[in-house]
């Protein structure tokens, strides 16, 4: 079975590299600030002993006052996993650095989140709609979406 890493230990390593980046860490989940997203992703992929070289999936949640983007990370080398959450501060104009440069599989899933949540991924090579048609009004997976 895949071992679930203790988030507090990984959070300590992240804090050592980028001071002040974590908001919360408990169980297998780390929540970090959005300005550290790309740095933290690159660190988790390359740091010795962590080596999260595989992105299981990428999704988002709407908490009414803010968005959270969730990364489910696995290391195929060490067979351990971790959940990384990034809290987005700006709800009116949500923006986040794309991780397609780190994990290539994030490409379509970031487009899906862009389509259904309206979160803009900066640095994405081809950020356009994937499910809905051109001209669709609103973002259907947001809590305040009304038909």
């Amino acid at each position, binding site marked *: 079975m895949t071992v679930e890493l203790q988030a507090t230990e990984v959070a300590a390593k992240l804090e050592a590299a980028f001071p002040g980046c974590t908001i919360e860490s408990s169980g297998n989940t780390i929540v970090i600030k959005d300005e550290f997203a790309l740095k933290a992703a690159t660190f988790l992929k390359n740091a010795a002993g962590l080596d999260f070289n595989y992105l299981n999936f990428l999704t988002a949640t709407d908490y009414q006052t803010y968005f959270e983007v969730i990364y489910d990370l696995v290391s195929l080398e060490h067979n351990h996993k971790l959940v990384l959450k990034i809290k987005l501060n700006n709800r009116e104009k949500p923006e986040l650095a794309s991780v397609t440069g780190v994990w290539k599989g994030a490409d379509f899933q970031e487009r899906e989140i862009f389509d259904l949540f309206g979160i803009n991924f900066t640095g994405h090579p081809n950020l356009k709609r994937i*499910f*809905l*048609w051109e001209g*669709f009004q*609103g973002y*259907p997976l947001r809590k305040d*979406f009304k*038909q």
Partner: protein
Amino acid sequence: MELNNQPQPEVYSDKILDKTEGEGVEFVKQQHQIQIEDPDSWQNEESNHNFILASADALINWSRSSSVWPVNAGLACCAFEMISTASSRFDISRFGMEIFRPSPRQADLLIVNGTLTWKMAPQLKRIYEQMAEPKYVIAMGSCAISGGLFRNSYAVVPGVNKIIPVDVYIPGCPPRPEALLYGIQMLHKKIKKQRNFEKRKSA
């Protein structure tokens, strides 16, 4: 030599063979002096017998309802029920409609089976418009009838009759093959009531 001087048996003689051939020819010539009549010469007579009195509508509707060819189109999970209706256990060919046409231009019946999304709607409308008249539509399953479970979704058409006119509705989620066969029989009954010499209301 002695053998050569012996007389040959009568059976093998040319004279006998020629004689039997000649008798045969004479026999046939005697038997066939009169011209044989064309057995189909009754077709030249005036048709005062051998016809059936029926209304043109009844004949046309009977032939149309006996060979309704469906178009080979499946949208969602209801399509599997349609496939099993077409295969040997339920056997749609009992109703003269086993030929699922891959081209809408050769088909009479569009079975809309499953959830229709707004993104798929233009394609379904095009399939319907490509079919030649007379054409019929069956809405199969609650999604096709009204949107069903997904009626309030932002992506789903609430009822396929928003896009194309529907002849028969078959409820169920999904309907069993027996239900589809019953719906098809209802369509047959509907076709048999059709009036072909009045203009059908166009969509």
